């Protein structure tokens, strides 16, 4: 029986960061809890935070479940995480600058050439183009799991457009509204500066051709997108326009937006649409979501696109294995946060090991996301394991495997009261002229007993995440 690290209780004692939460929990009668939960849900629905699940249809206004029991880190724990996250974000950006210029890390034999240059996320179109301040990934979302008091592992990196930060902000807002006493009793670091820092980060990478205060916009695929709420929420908090492709056009050396007062020049585009769709003249010619000619303006220095096209080559699950190597190569440092040991099914030795130990491992598609197309060996039936075996054997290069991690648990409100549930952590690191991280993150929780899958599309929920002031 696997031992899971419980972030609140160790050996029957309450760990320091949760000290003040035990009384709070015990003082809350079931009836009040039900009431508060309903209140929280009502707040979420009225604000309009809903989450449409990819490919599942159903109610587009479904709420993502919110658990009121906060997840807590001490200042010291966070300080170490912060160093590790920033280190990783720097290395990932250094890697991106390198592979689109001289590719030193490949020449040095530290990362296999094939993984980079035959990667479907590698964009030939931006080779040789250096984005402003040398930043490709301006918002790096790093998924982290904990297995012990000091054991943190990075599960994956998200260098393109990591989503979910609106939940970090809204969860806090709702907790503060419902439990103001908790915030008086605990010294909790605020997260509310995130939008301001994001805006400053985006403005700091304005192109050289831009003089004066840059105009920053958020480009969304549109109101049918499942993350539209987040796009609109962030744009509002940053005080920038939320635009669709049709609102922008290229003329001459610049990109312009259509306003009621005529065209207005746009300097920085925080895009929440995929590379393939941003410009039909450069990528998919059938894209209706993008802006024709945008890439030519970008490449000739008339506008900055965040994240830069091509940033995805740093975050696929096969390249992930080499991030510790990137940290050593570019920064000359040892990684502060560990990778999860990973087997590449594309390698025959690894494949043999994976197939022999399938029921013990977690297997994922290299380009998959959202918890789809993955196998959690220990939680699967024999038939599921065998079915997955066939999929791996049909296309080994498309899969990687990792040991089943003993994800930590935190107390979570469930029907019967309070019970431990598995959690992960997604902090959002901002990279511009400076690298910044607000003291907070999105904690996702697997609400089903025993489940290790925290994705909201698979029945996961979210929690407020606290960092205590030292």
């Amino acid at each position: 029986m696997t031992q899971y690290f419980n972030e609140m209780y160790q050996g029957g004692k309450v760990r320091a960061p949760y000290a003040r939460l035990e009384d709070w929990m015990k003082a809350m009668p079931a009836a009040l809890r039900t009431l508060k939960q309903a209140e929280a849900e009502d707040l979420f629905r009225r604000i309009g935070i809903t989450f449409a699940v990819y490919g599942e249809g159903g109610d587009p206004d479904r709420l993502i479940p919110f658990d009121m029991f906060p997840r807590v880190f001490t200042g010291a724990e966070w300080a170490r995480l912060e160093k590790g996250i920033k280190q990783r974000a720097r290395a990932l950006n250094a890697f991106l600058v390198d592979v689109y210029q001289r590719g030193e890390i490949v020449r040095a034999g530290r990362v296999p050439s094939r993984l980079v240059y035959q990667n479907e996320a590698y964009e030939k179109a931006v080779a040789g183009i250096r984005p402003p301040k040398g930043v490709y990934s301006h918002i790096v979302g790093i998924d982290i799991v904990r297995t012990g008091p000091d054991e943190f592992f990075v599960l994956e990196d998200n260098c393109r457009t990591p989503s979910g930060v609106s939940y970090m902000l809204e969860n806090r807002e709702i907790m503060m509204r419902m439990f103001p006493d908790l915030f008086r009793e605990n010294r909790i670091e605020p997260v509310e500066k995130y939008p301001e820092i994001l805006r400053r980060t985006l403005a700091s990478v304005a192109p050289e051709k831009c003089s004066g205060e840059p105009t920053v916009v958020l480009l969304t695929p549109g109101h049918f997108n499942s993350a539209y709420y987040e796009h609109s929420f962030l744009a509002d908090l940053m005080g920038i326009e939320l635009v669709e492709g049709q609102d922008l056009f290229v003329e001459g050396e610049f990109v312009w937006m259509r306003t009621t007062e005529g065209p207005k020049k746009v300097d920085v585009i925080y895009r929440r649409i995929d590379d393939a769709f941003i410009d039909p003249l450069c990528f998919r010619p059938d894209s209706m979501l993008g802006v024709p000619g945008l890439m030519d303006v970008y490449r000739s220095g008339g506008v900055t696109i965040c994240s830069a096209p091509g940033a995805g080559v740093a975050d696929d699950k096969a390249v992930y294995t080499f991030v510790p190597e990137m940290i050593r190569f570019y920064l000359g440092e040892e990684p502060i946060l560990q990778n999860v040991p990973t087997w590449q099914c594309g390698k025959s030795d690894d494949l043999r090991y994976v197939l022999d130990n399938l029921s013990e491992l977690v297997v994922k598609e290299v380009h998959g996301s959202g918890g789809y197309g993955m196998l959690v060996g220990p939680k699967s039936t024999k038939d599921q394991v065998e079915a997955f075996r066939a999929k791996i054997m049909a296309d080994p290069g498309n899969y990687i495997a990792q040991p089943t991690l003993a994800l930590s648990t935190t107390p979570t409100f469930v029907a019967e009261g309070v019970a431990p549930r598995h959690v992960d952590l997604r902090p959002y690191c901002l990279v511009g002229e400076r690298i910044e991280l607000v003291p907070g993150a999105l904690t996702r929780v697997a609400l089903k007993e025993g489940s290790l899958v925290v994705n909201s599309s698979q029945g996961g929920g979210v929690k407020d995440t606290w960092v205590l002031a030292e």
Partner: protein
Amino acid sequence: MLSRTADNLFWIARYMERAETAARLLEVGSRIALLPSAAGYRNEWDSLLQASGNADAFAKKYGDPVQRNIESFLFFDRDNPSSVACCITSARENGRIVRTALTAQVWDALNTAFQELRQLERTPRSELELSRLTEWTMRHAAMVRGAIDATLLRNDGWDFLNLGYNLERADNTARLMDVKYYVLLPRVEFVGSGLDNYQWTTLLRAMSAHRAFHWAYGGEVTAAKIAHFLILNPQCPRSLITCAEGISGHLDRLSKAYGATTDAQARARAMVDALRVTRTDDIFDEGLHDFLSRFIREAAALGSLIHDTYLSGDMR
């Protein structure tokens, strides 16, 4: 502001106004149906369908105009773009797209209307009195309007919302009057008869204006008084002149805020000026139908000029 945002705001207002019109039609229909002396309620229901401009679409889908079907059509029917359900859903969707341009209160009002609509749609029809549906619609339309007036910054977004409200309302008032003249009473010998007056009263009800009318004019209901009230009286909230003044005023505000005069502004002002010097006799000399048709055309042209100037995003 983004042209598309202005367009979404404009349409929030138009859809809310349109939802209100659909509910008003239902309200007045139900009142007529309650009167034993009515000249056959089926006929009156039919005239209401004519007024909504949807008689053909209704006939194709439902056949005979019986009350329950008309309720379905004007309130719930997703195939009828002018139904309350469609209008509220579209208004809320436009609102969702431009959340950043609305206050929490306006969004809350739009979203609450939509969420409650979904509950109504799940409620068995036997539990839904028609009066509950119409009152519900009026209440939510008023709540949205109130939230806009009470909380929204008086910036360009507010102007675009009000342009939408005024253009839609002008169009609805003109069409309702026009339908009365040609559909409700086709034969000239009925003009001035009790039936004629009764029908005019019905229309006043459709515009929630019949008490206001009596306060303002008193005595007998005549076509001339009604035309004056609904076209030329700047005190009437739904009169054509009130709507035209609203459009002109908001275009002037935009012009001032943006520091640029527009053709739309000039045209709106010309429309107001013309109405100010019009007398009731002039309208009847021209013919009420011809006058209204001309007004509807001019309002539509003004609408498309506003679209080209501000909403299309092609203006340089």
